[in-house]
């Protein structure tokens, strides 16, 4: 398997805190790959090491088959979690700058920038200053800066955070488009719904360690149809402590109960109906969301 990114036993230590602790995974070329995990799991640190912004204290990272170096950065597009643009520059000029520092000539960068601006309906704003743009438009401009130089690998750290649904779906389409034309996509998120829709493979990180890694469909299959959707009246707090229950995800109106693989949902129904008034009972495939919660020990990913 040709890999776009490969990590071997990578660790990063800040003082006495091991932010990333022996992480290994491979991102195949042409894939859409998700790094999932709760806040503080080590996602951003991992991504910064892939971008050669931080140096790992242990282990080895190879990107696009090479060891990290400055020339390599030209082939990688990067959208950091904390976004920033030169606010005083004009949009087209700013994009031209971002293209040029990726090794493009300025005319080439300008042409590409104008194409992208038109595609994202930002063409009329090209001569305006960045600070005049609305937040949504700035998100678009920032995205263009990352993809301008036709990267072989696009690294996105929490790309959808803070976006309205319109932009979310726009960027999802653009990312899929780029992927179809050969760009490998690596992104981190704690929004399981997005990851579930986009990713072919994922790695789940918690406390700096890999909890699960592999093809998303296979990970889900490992849990089988072992999830139960329940709606009821009464206090369902005891459900978490029943035998064979791995996790409970409370949505308020309903709960999703994740069972151990092979456990019998009928037993759960019997236990539950003895104490609660059941209004709905449905056996389903577990969502990535509930798997996530079960695996990282009940910490809410939205915390």
């Amino acid at each position, binding site marked *: 398997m040709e890999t776009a990114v490969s990590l071997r036993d990578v660790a990063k230590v800040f003082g006495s805190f091991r932010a990333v602790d022996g992480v290994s995974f491979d991102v195949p070329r042409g894939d859409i790959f998700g790094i999932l995990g709760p806040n503080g799991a080590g996602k951003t640190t991992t991504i910064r090491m892939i971008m050669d*912004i931080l140096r790992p204290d242990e282990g080895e990272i190879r990107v696009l088959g090479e060891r990290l170096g400055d020339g390599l950065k030209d082939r990688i597009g990067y959208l950091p979690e904390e976004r920033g643009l030169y606010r005083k520059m004009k949009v087209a000029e700013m994009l031209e700058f971002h293209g040029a520092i990726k090794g493009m000539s300025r005319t080439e960068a300008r042409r590409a920038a104008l194409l992208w601006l038109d595609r994202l309906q930002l063409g009329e704003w090209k001569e305006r200053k960045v600070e005049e743009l609305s937040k949504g438009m700035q998100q678009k401009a920032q995205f263009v800066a990352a993809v301008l130089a036709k990267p072989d690998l696009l690294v996105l750290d929490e790309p959808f955070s803070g976006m309205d649904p319109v932009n979310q779906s726009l960027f999802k389409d653009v990312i899929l488009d780029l992927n179809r034309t050969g760009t490998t996509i690596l992104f981190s998120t704690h929004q399981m719904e997005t990851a579930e829709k986009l990713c072919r493979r994922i790695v789940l990180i918690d406390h700096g360690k890999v909890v699960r890694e592999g093809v998303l469909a296979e990970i889900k299959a490992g849990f089988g149809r072992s999830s139960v959707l329940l709606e009821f009246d009464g206090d369902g707090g005891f459900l978490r402590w029943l035998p064979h229950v791995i996790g409970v995800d409370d949505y308020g109106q309903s709960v999703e109960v994740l069972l151990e693989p092979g456990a019998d949902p009928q037993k759960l129904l019997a236990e539950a109906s003895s104490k609660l008034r059941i209004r709905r009972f449905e056996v389903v495939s577990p969502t990535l969301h509930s798997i996530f919660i079960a695996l990282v020990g009940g910490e809410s990913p939205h915390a």
Partner: protein
Amino acid sequence: MHKVLTVIRREYLERVRKKSWWIGTFVIPLLILGLMFGMVSLFMMRTEQQRRIGLADGSGALFEPLQEAVAEKKLKDGRPQILLERLPLLGSVEATRKAAEPRIGKKDLYAIVTAEKDLYAENAFRFYGQNVGNIQIIAAVERALAEVVVRVRFERSGLAADRAEIERLMAPVDLETFQISETGEARKRGFNQAIYGTFIFIVILYMALLLYGIAVMRGVLEEKSNRVMEVLLGSMSPRQLMVGKILGIGLVGLTQMAVYAATAGALRMWVGAQNIQGDLAGMLDSVSPLKMAYFVVFFVLGYFLYVGIFAAIGAVCNSEQEAQNLQTPVTMILVVPYAASFFVIANPDSMLATVGSLIPFFTPILMYARISTISPPVWEIALSIALLLLSIWLVFRGVAKIFRVGVLMYGKRPTIPEILRWARD
């Protein structure tokens, strides 16, 4: 290289496009020039009005010689500037003045000068007028009066009766200063004027080193706080970013300094062509092409020495308030040679000045001050530049590491020992 050039271009254009930079680069020197010309021409301008001054002379010996003396100063049309009128004595000098005073209010008289009977008495001479700020008139009267009174004293003492001999005795003693220039040629020169010219450029050097250093610091802080930093680091190494930023802003400063030096050079040529003598010419002597070249060289070297430290401060801080604390000691180091330059200009070849100008952090200002006032030995200049280059190299070795670690640090500012540890390993 392409990346560094792109950063340099962006930094340069962003700053050069600012109105404040244009004002600082072109308008302020023009204002200073205008002010200088204004002062010089105001000073040289003659009041085109004839002034009638009344003399109440208690001694009775002053009128004729004084009239003769003040008549030497002529208006453009050839009439004497001051017209002296004898006020007939009415009992006392005091009474004479009082009687004539209303004529000043009626503009009939410009002023009244009184002289007591005893020419040796303290405060024997007084000037009364509505406008006592007209230095030209007062100076002219004073000069004439001094000359005349001393002559009368001589005559009365009987030491010398002959008028020619009196003039010989009274011939002024003038100490002329000569400067041995770089070419070994002795040139007549006023020391005071040399100080002005040197001092203007020392102020510029001090301000430029401080302001452009702080500009780099602010630039780094800004990129940290608006989070552009991480996007940039996704495209280039911290070293490339730092080099690009420092060179870009340095070029902006260099452009400005070159404009200043060229303006001074042009003014010097113009003054040379006009054959103007005196204060202005003396002042411009300190802006010879060689001295201006040294000025630019010491700006560049000083900039590189200080800017590294400012860049590192920007990298480890999160806000300007935080940076202020770290910035203060650096500013202090820069203030020392600036303050010492007063002494160094006055004693450019003293031991203290020589040693001070060889300390790298003081070299840019102090060595320039010495070059501008005397011609220090070439080996001293060469040594100071060598030490400066060595210090720049040492500073940057540490700064590059601090920058790399610092730019992505948010949150608590590291302590100075921590920062120094980064610089070492």
